[in-house]
């Protein structure tokens, strides 16, 4: 039951962020969205991911967004009704709506053949992952399977991940840093 409640809240959050004109408010709602998402991750037993999502999605992203807002504008431009009804604006809205509906339809089409939620017979639980669960302790001597996969079996992805975050840092320096005094 609580899962359904959380899913409902999160849908409301997403829609609210979409319609909010105050960008600071939208940022806060995005933070709430991330935080509830972290709760859902915990409900689904993804504790590591929940931890990361709470600290990164709800924490750092919000801080950065607010810092950026403080240097730009807080409110979205308020279009008048005439501007909204201009054919070009309407056309763009309708086109993006159609695009989104088509994408969504294709995704839903894919769900027809999906294994049921939580099905232990699903291919994902049959092929690669059993070995991680059974052999991790023997292979690496570590109890947290996620850490073992992250740092050892797929440690190279994590090197890529570290490089991504370094790239982000160095790109921000390249874009924003001024000469030192």
């Amino acid at each position, binding site marked *: 039951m609580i899962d*359904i409640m959380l*899913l409902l809240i*999160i*849908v409301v959050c*997403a829609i609210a962020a*979409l319609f909010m004109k105050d*960008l600071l408010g*939208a*940022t806060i709602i995005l933070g709430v969205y*991330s935080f509830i998402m972290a709760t*859902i*991750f915990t409900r*689904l*037993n*993804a504790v*590591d*991911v929940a931890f*990361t999502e709470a600290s*990164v*999605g709800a924490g750092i*992203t919000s801080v*950065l*967004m607010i810092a*950026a807002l403080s*240097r*730009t*504008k807080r409110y979205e*431009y308020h279009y008048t009704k005439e501007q909204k009804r201009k054919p070009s604006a309407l056309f*763009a809205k309708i086109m*993006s709506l159609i695009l*989104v509906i088509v*994408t969504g*339809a294709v*995704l*839903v*089409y894919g*769900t027809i053949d*999906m294994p*049921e*939620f*939580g099905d*232990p017979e699903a291919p*994902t639980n049959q092929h*690669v*992952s059993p070995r*991680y669960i059974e052999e991790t302790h023997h292979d690496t001597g570590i109890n*947290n*399977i*996620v850490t073992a*996969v992250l740092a050892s079996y*797929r440690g190279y*992805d994590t090197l890529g*991940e570290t490089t*991504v*975050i370094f790239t*982000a840092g160095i*790109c*921000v320096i390249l*874009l*924003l840093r001024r000469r030192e005094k």
Partner: protein
Amino acid sequence: MKLCALGVFAVNFFLDMFGLVIMADIIHIIQTKYYYLVVIFLMMIGLYATISTRNLIKKIIGINIFQISVFLFYITMSKVKHGTAPILWDKSHVYDNPLPHVLILTAIVVSVSTTAVALALIINIHKEYGTIEEDMILEKQKLDIDRSNIA
């Protein structure tokens, strides 16, 4: 002939979609896969926010919603009935699938990195153009072009 193949494919696609409704499978699907459907709905809200709004920061918010919903999609597929969190302990025999968790840890990092770079770009755009609305930036760009043509 090629067009025929396209047509047949399109018809099949719609029949599949339509058949879904007719066979009253829909209740079964909602019961067993409601998580996926909600996730897809969330993704589409995010995608819509990204491509339809004209405000640069709002677009970033939309992209964040989109990406975070994809994360939920991955986590949803990692859940196993009666499974526990993938940390070994002696009381459990069924664990959730750890691999999607690992992938999403990486993807979260990618998402925050993209957000950071995008915000840096937006700050620079605001410094140069004085606005973060796409329409007004386009207007100013047109002015720029006119000015360079006159010069």
